[in-house]
């Protein structure tokens, strides 16, 4: 019986170690990837897109999976970051890091403004509000020609670190990888702090959160602001990777893409976000020749995942382990019957009312 109780703890520990190992392997592969494919411009472009979209998906998952909010307008935030990059870079000669931070900060401010009304809306009302935002941003860009270049957009000037041109595939790849890695570290750090706990508290129980001193409306605004900041950073990479920032790059299907990537990858999962985005980028690349069908494939992917694998790809290993391991999990009622008094004496799964 002791063994039965020890098992979940041991499994969790093994899970943490294997996840650490997996992180190192993936990071190592990502670091050496350009040594093999660096000369292939189109492959590098796709790889950078995976990193960019991975970051937006992660930012959206922070909002949806950890914050319990919904947005189908995150393409609009990516657009704000990309336009900020292009506008600042065409007018001022600033170091790349300044432009990058500006892209993040300006997008965060826009996200804060979006979060103000959104903080008062729930579920599908919020979905519609964010959808409106996502559709409006490229339209606004189209009509603010003097700032955004209107229909033709803005060509992004080449930033340099020393003599290295950052919009070359290999340097940009490493910049994107660095930004993504730092963002993952930052998001993990936020999630382990009071701010992150507040996000999850609002997600899990909006009604009891105020009793813990949580200002729910304010927390939602913070969720939108933080998520938007990371979208802005992704917008910087997006602008450099495309070379030009134009309204047509930010269609509604881009927002749909991020939403789908979160669902496919799995809510409240950092790895799931990155895997979901990578998978869908590849699927889209492969389905380009099918024309309008690529959006239908996204929609189908969401439906299939919701039906067959709720929890997304990230939850699959655990679900599979659960299927294989079978019935070690104690039945919830059994634990209730034994009661907290018996914690030290008997494992909850073995409890019965008689023992209490």
């Amino acid at each position, binding site marked *: 019986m002791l063994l039965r109780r020890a098992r979940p703890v041991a499994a969790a520990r093994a899970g943490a170690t294997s996840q650490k190992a997996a992180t190192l392997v993936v990071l190592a592969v990502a670091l050496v990837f350009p040594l093999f494919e660096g000369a292939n411009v189109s492959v590098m472009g796709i790889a950078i897109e995976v990193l960019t979209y991975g970051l937006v998906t992660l930012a959206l998952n922070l909002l949806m999976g950890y914050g319990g909010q919904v947005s189908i307008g995150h393409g609009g935030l990516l657009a704000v970051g990309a336009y900020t990059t292009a506008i600042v870079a065409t007018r001022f000669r600033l170091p790349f890091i300044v432009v990058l931070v500006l892209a993040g900060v300006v997008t965060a401010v826009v996200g804060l403004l979006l979060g103000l009304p959104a903080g008062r809306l729930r579920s599908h009302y919020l979905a519609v509000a964010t959808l409106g935002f996502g559709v409006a941003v490229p339209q606004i860009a189209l009509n603010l020609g003097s700032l955004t270049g209107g229909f033709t957009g803005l060509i992004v000037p080449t930033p340099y670190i020393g003599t290295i041109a950052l919009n070359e595939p290999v340097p940009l790849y490493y910049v994107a990888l660095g930004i993504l890695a730092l963002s993952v570290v930052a998001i993990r750090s936020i999630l382990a702090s009071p*701010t992150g*706990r507040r996000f999850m508290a609002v997600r*899990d*129980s909006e009604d009891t959160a105020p*009793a813990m001193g949580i200002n729910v409306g304010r927390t939602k605004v*913070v969720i939108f602001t933080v998520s938007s900041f990371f979208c802005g950073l992704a917008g910087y990479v997006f602008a450099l990777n495309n070379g030009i920032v134009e309204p047509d790059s930010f269609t509604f299907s881009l927002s749909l893409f991020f939403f789908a990537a979160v669902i496919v990858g799995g809510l409240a999962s950092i790895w799931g976000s990155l895997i979901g985005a990578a998978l869908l980028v590849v699927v889209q690349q492969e389905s380009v020749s099918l024309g309008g069908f690529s959006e239908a494939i996204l929609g189908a992917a969401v439906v299939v995942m919701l039906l067959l694998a709720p929890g997304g790809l990230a939850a699959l290993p655990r679900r599979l382990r659960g299927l294989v391991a079978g019935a070690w999990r104690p039945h919830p009622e059994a634990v209730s019957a034994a009661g*907290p*008094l018996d914690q030290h004496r008997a494992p909850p799964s073995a409890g019965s009312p008689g023992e209490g």
Partner: protein
Amino acid sequence: MLRIEDLSLSFGGVQAIDALHLTVPDGTITALIGPNGAGKTSVLNVVNGLYRPQRGCVLHDGFDLLSLPSYRVIQRGITRSFQNVALFGGLSVIDNLILGFDHRSRTGVVRDLLRTRALRAHERAARIRAEEVLEFLGITAIARRRADELAFGERKLVDLGRALMPRPNLVLLDEPAAGLVEAQKAWLAQVLSRIPDEFGAAVLVIDHDMRLVLGVSTWVVVMDFGRKIAEGTPDEVRANPVVLAAYLGGGPAGAAQGQ
């Protein structure tokens, strides 16, 4: 000390609380009992800032609680548990508890991100405090479990634990014993009766289990149809015919007969 004076609350045409006077002295356990729909939970919701009454005042050490938004009531040292035990299901037990402590952290996103010294000190203090509360409740073994995987009895204790985290001076408990089996109720009674001494907190508890409530409390207030129909020591209330009528007769007619 909590003082409720002339409190009235109605929803549309329904009078939930009717001219209620109630005092909870420091360091005591006061029970609020009455049949279903008597308005007991509404009283907690008013104290907690969730409902705004039409009339009356709620004073905590002379401070007007009704001037505070709900999320700031905890800053006065007032915490509560919930009838429906809405834990933060996706979080571990220890994180649920720490959330009951987090209002003390005045840090924002940026400082949380940079893990400043103040934040690290807060996290350490929160963890130590959580371990004390877990031990007090006898649930140290479930500290790392996810809240939504817990059994009902364990959830109730975690909910209570959240309310004890910030060293409160007043704890509002909404049916802490509901749904528990006898052994768990005995443990709960023991835990409850130790709260005033070990935490220096007063308790205002609602529950339907008379044996538990009358066993732990020093003062009992009986409500029916939003009004206070009796109060006294547990022994006085036990012997009061008005109270018996309210419970057995279940209507204002029954209560009137008792008088």
